[in-house]
């Protein structure tokens, strides 16, 4: 406890990881391939669109060497649709995460098929969010990727002229989304108190930044409920164990005493 490090990733760490997301850029200048630890970047040839990691795209953007193509989900229409879905259609749950390139088929349960062809070389297996092109121009609209808030904020701040001039509208919609989802996170704490429910909150579709923000709170609530439930739970378990022992003794007596014990065991079962 000497140095209480916060649990999980901090906001700046999450934002750093988000810079690994691929975004689509339109280069303005030629740039040869750069040999990086993560592999070679593709060579840039001016009018051809190419996918680059966000950090490199932002760097080139600041140097005016490239324009960033915003991902389709950042379009105001798409954001408005998500806000509508979050508030009106499913006011209880978070909106669905972006479909992955490999997912189970609805029609054939038990079979998983690869959906995709987003990437140019199909030999590589691309699956999880940082490597899956969720923020390129080929990503589907109407879904929020894992790093939605970080990527959106970065693009609004550094590439606002590429967003088609409606930055304030996008910013407003993002604020709405943040507020709506924060309210859901709060309400999810209350569902923990319902009796008979296992105390499980579904956090499917929650973004990385929201997790970082609410981790402490949600864990605190779950821990508190666990401590309060602990005493009740121990008492219940003890009672069940006693019941089990009683039942075992009864059975033994029934075996020993022939048919005489039947009436008693029926009474025990409450029939």
């Amino acid at each position, binding site marked *: 406890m000497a140095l209480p490090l916060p649990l999980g990733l901090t906001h700046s760490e999450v934002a750093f990881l988000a810079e690994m997301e691929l975004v689509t850029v339109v280069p303005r200048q030629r740039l040869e391939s750069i040999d990086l630890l993560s592999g070679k970047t593709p060579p840039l040839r001016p009018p051809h669109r190419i996918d680059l990691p966000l950090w490199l795209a932002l760097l080139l953007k600041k140097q005016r060497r490239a324009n960033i193509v915003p991902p389709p989900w950042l379009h105001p229409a798409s954001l408005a649709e998500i806000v509508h879905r979050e508030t009106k259609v499913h006011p209880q749950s978070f909106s669905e995460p972006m479909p992955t390139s490999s997912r189970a088929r609805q029609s054939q349960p038990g079979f998983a098929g690869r959906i995709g062809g987003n990437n140019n070389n199909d030999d590589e297996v691309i699956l999880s969010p940082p490597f899956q092109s969720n923020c390129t121009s080929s990503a589907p609209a109407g879904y929020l990727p894992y790093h939605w808030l970080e990527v959106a904020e970065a693009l609004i701040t550094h590439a606002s002229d590429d967003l088609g001039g409606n930055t304030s509208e996008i910013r407003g919609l993002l604020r709405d989304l943040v507020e709506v989802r924060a309210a859901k996170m709060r309400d999810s704490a209350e569902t923990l108190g319902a*009796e008979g429910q296992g105390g499980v909150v579904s956090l499917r579709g929650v973004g990385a930044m929201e997790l970082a923000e609410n*981790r402490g709170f949600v864990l605190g609530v779950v821990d508190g409920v666990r401590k309060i439930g602990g005493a009740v739970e121990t008492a219940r378990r003890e009672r069940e164990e006693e019941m089990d022992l009683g039942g075992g003794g009864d059975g033994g007596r029934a075996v020993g005493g022939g048919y005489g014990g039947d009436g008693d065991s029926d009474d025990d079962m409450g029939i």
Partner: protein
Amino acid sequence: MSYYDIDSILTDAEKIPCTFQLDIPDLGYLDNTPNQPLKAGTKVSLPLWLAEMLVIANTGGPDNKTFVTFDLPRALGNDVVQALKADPRAVPLRDQSAHFYGLATHMMDLSEEQELGSVLRKTFVTRAAEISLHARKVGGGGVKGKGKDEGSNLGIGGAGEDFLRGLDEWERKLFRKAHDGAKAGKEWMESIKKN
């Protein structure tokens, strides 16, 4: 619940009302009657750590009596529980006990109160949601109090302050966690705009 946990130690120091079941010589000063034995049936408030031991241990006599019997402390009394059932948010738990939940979980270990557990659970989560709301709305300036109006669009004024003053230690920790998260989020938002 580590050995050095201050909150755990302070929780153990909470007084609970106990009734002695037998005469004890030379302990009369506990009941303002020095040099006299402590009579059976005397009610004395004992700290939780002592009462717990005395309740669990028995005298070893033929009737297997325990040294003391205990009642629920006033903080967990019937009127408080009824008030919590009515509206968990309206009860300032800190006025009952600064370590309300710690005390309550201890008492539930000792006594078999079925109802108390579910009431507490409901209370805790309902208040947790409220705490989270306040934690987000309190501005980034200070932990509490300062910068109230900033970012507040729900008109949380004096009532909010009252609510926050009524939080017990568990809830204060929770408030801190929720507030730290919200504050870090705000700082991050501002940091992008700078560079």
